[in-house]
């Protein structure tokens, strides 16, 4: 049966039209045509501009008849469009009065804020036509992907081992050995690698459409073209980055991303997207018109009383997140990625901005954050905040959460780094981090679920660089080494940069293993930076946002060279998965049949840790009840940490009868004696004391003697 409203009522030139439906926003395929719907509160009129794919000039401009406007929404159905070959935009007429916040320019062709695919940067790095009248072009997509019963995995967050990666950097290096380097498709080829490593969640750095040529320039240092490689600057929020798709040149990026997510899910790997709602690629008043500025500047951006752009993002403008229109757009966007792409969660870049009001002031109960916390469609999605912004708001431990939001725990990173390099007075902080940061997350009963633990992330040193450089080396970024954080809490192990000295190299390998052990033995959800497990380096660059070259691409040759690091990570991950006591969110409330505390602190003396500032020796013991682990008996885990430059003996706590200490890992030993396969631990020779080498970590399990 045909719908009775599927026939045209109006005509413009050769186009048949009728009034559209205001919802959903964007372009939607309807019987016989396409329904276009776009909001603007302050525009006086709007035109739909149609292009054939890649053609320089439009083939049609159709004004929205005034009777097609509903409230502040222009909406229209255009019949008989070949939507696969179509690119569309809008032109809006309205006031240009910057002091009042209005910047309409009826000559600019504007991208639909709800564009589901965006053309213009279809192939990564292809030099664009700078005179293009419409550089970022909205396209229409099919949303009928065949998921074959796929569903987000909905694993408890505490069971995740997150692996943060840049889609392009992960496989772009020639050594990756994939068919289409640097693409979504090639991540699929690496799934066996991810499974072997043991991670069960990938966090993709921004995959929304961005412009790699934004602020593109030639490095004065090495002549390389510097690009917006990281992509923390959205052109559109609903469209995947075409240049990351091997099929982007055919406009099939949507299907490629969905096929990737479906395959990751099949292999038990969740997908978290790094989303950037704090600003857009339009920059400040000197930036280009892409979309929002020309559609309704005053709605989309936080403006000063004089009409300039507030810059809480450090990127030129600030999205007006707590304006109801923008709030709804963000909600629509996240719902779309959750429902249409089966995404498992989101990490919000500079999330504190999402809690600022329309004048920029931090709010007590920000409506956007509350909406997301309680949204039914996002109900099982992980919500992770980078709980600070460039405007000086720092909310680690205090991000408004409603029991739903987790945080990138920046304190974890800092405290572990201090402890790792042997700083004085680092023991107390380390103990907090090991037990899931109760000092930060206990007060509102958030627990260790709120803590995403990391030592390294895309922002800052790689793990190899953390133990190879005292200072950052960002000269190649062309900003006189003034960009990037200067407070890295790093230590080069005695030589700045690459070294052939065997002692330095050994110590670095050990420090990397120490870091892996601390990260994976701590309560809270661990996040590993892709490449750290094979000792990937960025040559000391701690802000590689503009480096689309070998500096930032993962060099897969290192996997062979640094096999001992990979094996250590792999086995530590397996150890974490094997032992629920390391992940359990309420360990302290769990009993055990041994009568031991669930968690206890030790040091060179059992049951008696020296907490003084000079002390660098700490041991943690967990009693893992048989009931928790599904084993007949309780088991014990003991982590001895000696970050002092001398060897120290650690007196071991006495185990219940029948159990003995077994060595799982000892970072002071060379491979293959540095770590064992889970379950293959070797009984310790001396059950009363363990000599822990300088700057070393030992992991023991207490179980029936083998």
């Amino acid at each position, binding site marked *: 049966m045909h719908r009775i409203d599927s026939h045209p009522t109006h005509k413009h030139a050769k186009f048949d039209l009728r009034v559209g439906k205001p919802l959903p926003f964007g372009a939607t395929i309807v019987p016989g045509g396409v329904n276009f719907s776009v909001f603007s509160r302050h525009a006086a009129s709007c035109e739909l501009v149609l292009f054939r794919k890649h053609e320089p000039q439009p083939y049609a401009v159709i004004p929205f008849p005034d009777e097609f406007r509903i409230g502040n929404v222009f909406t229209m159905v255009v019949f008989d469009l070949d939507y696969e*070959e179509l690119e569309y935009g809008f032109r809006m007429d309205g006031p240009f009065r910057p002091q009042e916040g209005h910047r309409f320019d009826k000559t600019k062709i504007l991208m639909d804020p709800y564009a589901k695919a965006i053309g213009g940067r279809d192939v990564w790095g292809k030099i664009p036509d700078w005179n293009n009248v419409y550089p970022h072009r909205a396209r229409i997509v099919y949303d009928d992907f065949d998921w074959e019963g796929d569903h987000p995995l909905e694993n408890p967050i505490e069971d995740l081992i997150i692996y943060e990666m840049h889609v392009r950097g992960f496989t772009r290096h020639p050594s990756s050995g994939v068919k289409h380097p640097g693409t*979504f498709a090639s991540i699929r080829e690496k799934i066996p690698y991810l499974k072997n490593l043991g991670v069960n969640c990938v966090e993709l750095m921004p995959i929304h459409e961005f412009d790699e040529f934004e602020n593109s320039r030639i490095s004065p240092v090495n002549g390389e073209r510097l690009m917006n490689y990281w992509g923390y600057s959205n052109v559109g929020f609903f469209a995947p980055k075409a240049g990351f798709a091997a*099929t982007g040149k*055919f*406009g099939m990026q949507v299907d490629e991303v969905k*096929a990737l997510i479906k*395959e990751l899910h099949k292999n038990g790997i969740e997908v978290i997207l790094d989303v950037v709602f704090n600003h857009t690629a339009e920059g400040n008043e000197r930036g280009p018109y892409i979309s929002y500025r020309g559609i309704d500047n005053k709605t989309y951006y936080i403006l000063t009383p004089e009409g300039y752009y507030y810059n809480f993002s450090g990127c030129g403008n600030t999205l007006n997140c707590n304006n109801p229109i923008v709030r709804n757009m963000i909600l629509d966007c996240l719902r779309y990625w959750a429902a249409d792409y089966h995404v498992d969660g989101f990490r919000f870049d500079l999330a504190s901005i999402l809690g600022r009001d329309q004048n920029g002031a931090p709010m007590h109960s920000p409506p956007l954050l509350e909406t997301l916390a309680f949204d039914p469609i996002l109900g099982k999605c992980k919500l992770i905040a980078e709980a600070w912004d460039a405007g000086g708001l720092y909310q680690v431990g205090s991000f408004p959460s409603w029991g739903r939001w987790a945080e990138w725990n920046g304190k974890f990173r800092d405290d572990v780094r201090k402890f790792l390099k042997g700083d004085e007075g680092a023991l107390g902080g380390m103990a907090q981090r090991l037990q899931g940061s109760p000092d930060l997350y206990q007060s509102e009963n958030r627990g260790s679920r709120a803590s995403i633990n990391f030592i390294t992330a895309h922002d800052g040193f790689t793990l190899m660089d953390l133990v190879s450089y005292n200072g950052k080396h960002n000269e190649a970024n062309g900003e006189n080494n003034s960009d990037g954080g200067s407070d890295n809490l790093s230590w080069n192990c005695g030589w700045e940069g690459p070294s052939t000295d065997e002692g330095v190299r050994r110590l670095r390998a050990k420090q990397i293993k120490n870091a892996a052990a601390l990260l994976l033995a701590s309560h809270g959800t661990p996040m590993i930076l892709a490449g750290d497990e094979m000792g990937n380096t960025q040559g000391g660059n701690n802000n590689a946002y503009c480096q689309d070259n070998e500096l930032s691409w993962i060099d897969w040759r290192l996997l062979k060279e640094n096999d001992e690091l990979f094996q250590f990570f792999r086995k530590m991950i397996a150890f974490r998965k094997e032992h629920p006591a390391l992940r359990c969110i309420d360990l302290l409330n769990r009993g055990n049949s041994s009568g031991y505390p669930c968690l206890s602190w030790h040091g060179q003396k059992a049951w008696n840790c020296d907490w003084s500032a000079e002390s660098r020796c700490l041991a943690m013991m967990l009693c893992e009840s048989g009931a928790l682990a599904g084993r007949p008996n309780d088991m014990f885990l003991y982590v001895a940490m000696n970050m002092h430059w001398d060897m120290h003996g650690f007196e071991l706590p006495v185990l219940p009868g029948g159990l003995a200490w077994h060595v799982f890992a000892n970072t002071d030993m060379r491979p293959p004696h540095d770590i064992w396969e889970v379950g293959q631990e070797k009984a310790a020779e001396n059950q009363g004391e363990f000599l822990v080498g300088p700057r070393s970590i030992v992991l023991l399990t207490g179980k029936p003697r083998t």
Partner: protein
Amino acid sequence: MELKIETRDGVSVITVEGKLDGNTSAQAQEKIMPLVLPGARLVMDMSRCDYVSSAGLRVLLLVAKQTASRGGKVALAGVGDEVKDVMEMTGFGGFFKNHPSADEAVRALKAG
């Protein structure tokens, strides 16, 4: 695009010539769907098809799904490397078995 339909050993062989894209896929679908009868066996010979767009892939998948739901089978033949690659990367590949030639596809369908 042109479609040629013939019957070999009780199997309908549909040869697609030219481009299967947004312009032509609706027409292709209209011609193929009447062949999707209960228990039908279809071979889509793609060896003369130089481009399959997103819309084209959707027609292939629709035909395959409809045929399967009526107890029939669809096989592809002669899919070029690039199209095969695109199908693989976009998740369409898993739904089809591709054979080097239409004759081999016919034989496989008859045997299976």
